[in-house]
């Protein structure tokens, strides 16, 4: 394994390329900015609910606006397209080019994607900061410590999404359906992640499931931390759940990688 200084150089270089790739087409950037607005559609639904029946599970108008505004940034920063990309790499044989380099293909792909996320952050975080200052209904009331923990959870959430995506990506060594399998997993989990609504709004059974399963750690946890809506015990349990799932999926990726690569057929060419 290369020394830390060399690893930093490798990551910086890959991230620079990922950043450059994401910026290569203006149309792509415009579409990305539009997709960041999707959570605001869910927000309008919940605002009309609050208007009709009042606050729901402790979430009032200001709470929902803040949740989805912060969520719009968190969703973009903790998402990962690596499962589909990997599926393509294996199916078309492009993985061969990455395998020939003296750095793990997983590092290469994640490095590129982190670069793309840096661009997402550079575009969306300033908008969120300005909106927080300008809109009285948007309030990030957590302490500085909450904000720091929220950013840590955001990084952890991206790492967990990526580890989950890579676990399914490794299925590509056995099946050509890894991307679709991941879509199924993520589709089922989106509801429990806090994508559709804050987890505390869900029925008790789903709330219990959300507390155990990995999805909430990737979306709901960082949002609620940044908004300062969790007490110390909830923060400890949330961070421990995130760390536990991250460790479990990291081990799964390593095991599947070492077995899958032996089956790799390096098709084409």
């Amino acid at each position: 394994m290369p020394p830390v200084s060399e690893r930093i150089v490798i990551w910086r270089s890959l991230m620079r390329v990922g950043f450059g790739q994401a910026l290569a087409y203006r149309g792509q950037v415009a579409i990305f900015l539009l997709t960041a607005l999707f959570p605001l559609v869910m927000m309008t639904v919940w605002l009309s609910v609050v208007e009709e029946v009042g606050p729901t599970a402790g979430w009032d108008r200001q709470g929902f606006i803040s949740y989805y505004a912060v969520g719009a940034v968190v969703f973009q920063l903790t998402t990962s397209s690596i499962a589909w990309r990997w599926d393509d790499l294996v199916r078309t044989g492009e993985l061969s080019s990455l395998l020939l380099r003296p750095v793990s293909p997983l590092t290469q792909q994640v490095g590129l994607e982190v670069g793309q996320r840096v661009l997402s952050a550079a575009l969306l975080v300033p908008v969120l900061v300005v909106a927080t200052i300008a809109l009285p209904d948007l309030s990030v009331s957590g302490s500085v410590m909450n904000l720091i923990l929220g950013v840590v959870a955001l990084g952890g959430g991206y790492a967990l999404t990526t580890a989950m995506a890579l676990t399914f990506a490794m299925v590509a060594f056995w099946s050509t359906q890894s991307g679709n399998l991941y879509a199924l997993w993520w589709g089922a989990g989106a509801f429990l992640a806090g994508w559709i609504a804050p987890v505390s709004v869900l029925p008790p059974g789903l709330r219990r499931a959300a507390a155990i399963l990995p999805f909430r750690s990737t979306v709901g946890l960082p949002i609620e931390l940044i908004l300062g809506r969790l007490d110390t015990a909830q923060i400890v349990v949330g961070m421990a759940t995130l760390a536990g799932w991250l460790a479990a999926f990291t081990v799964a990726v390593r095991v599947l990688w070492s077995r899958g690569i032996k089956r790799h057929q390096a098709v084409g060419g």
Partner: protein
Amino acid sequence: MIEVEGLARHFRVSHRDAGLGSSLKALLHRRYELVRAVDDVSFRIDDGEVVGFLGPNGAGKTTTLKCLAGLLYPTHGTVRVLGFTPNERRAEFLSRITFVMGQRNQLFWDLPTIESLRVNQAIYRIGDTQFKESLDELVDLLGLEPLLTKQVRMLSLGERMRCELAAGLLHRPDVLFLDEPTLGLDVRGQGAVRSFIAEYNQRHGATVLLTSHYMADVTSLAKRVVLIDHGVLRYDGDLADLVEQAAPFRLVTVTLSDPVESGVFAGYGEVIESDGTHAVMRVPRAATRDVASRLLAELPVVDVSIEEPSIEDTMRTVFDQRATDAVSVDAARE
């Protein structure tokens, strides 16, 4: 050094007939076939050698190269390259080889070429001084100057191939696996790539294993060839010896001042074409000098020339002969 002993790589390949019915049937039951892409191949290549790896399509050339580069785990047998077992994919091993595939793109498609080279600098841990030296050398040998800042997707095939070579050789590898490096290039492009490979081999003493369907690539770069067909090694040795074995004749062309009966030429060799004053004949190598002397003594010769058959024709003969042999062996087994 490259050492290959009893290498085999088998694949399980699924089959499905055309049509909706077959698609549905394949959901429940799929037909598989075991393909022996490489079967019990052994050879050894010394440091600094340039070896042509020849065979018809589907012969097992690329599969062998992929095993040597660590992309595939062998089904059986052992492979050692520079003292490493390739499929362990150690960073020290990968830093000393390159595998350039004519139809594969290793560059970042949407970015200028220099970005891919910069990433390789980081990945291969090339210091700034060596990077500059290496890049200057490659820019000079491959004429890359105007291409470095161009988006890769905007490059022509020939330009892209030159950039691929630069990306593959920036870290100055000791072993080069080149799979069809001139595929699709025009004559000028082919020539440029050939000269570059020869120059690189001379300057850095690198070992080169090259596959190509263009015989000119092989004849201009390699003295030794390894011939593989149906996954089995058929020949390993001097290219000139192979040509002599496969084509034990030369072409004698004669032009006369006065016409003679066409049957006259048959007394000198196997007539390929004749029109009374001009004839091309296939003559056994050992008899060439004697036939030429007789022609000059017995006929009104204006001009006589002796040529080697083209390498393309020779290889076609070799592959056709091997195919016939394989069919005969299969028939005998049945």
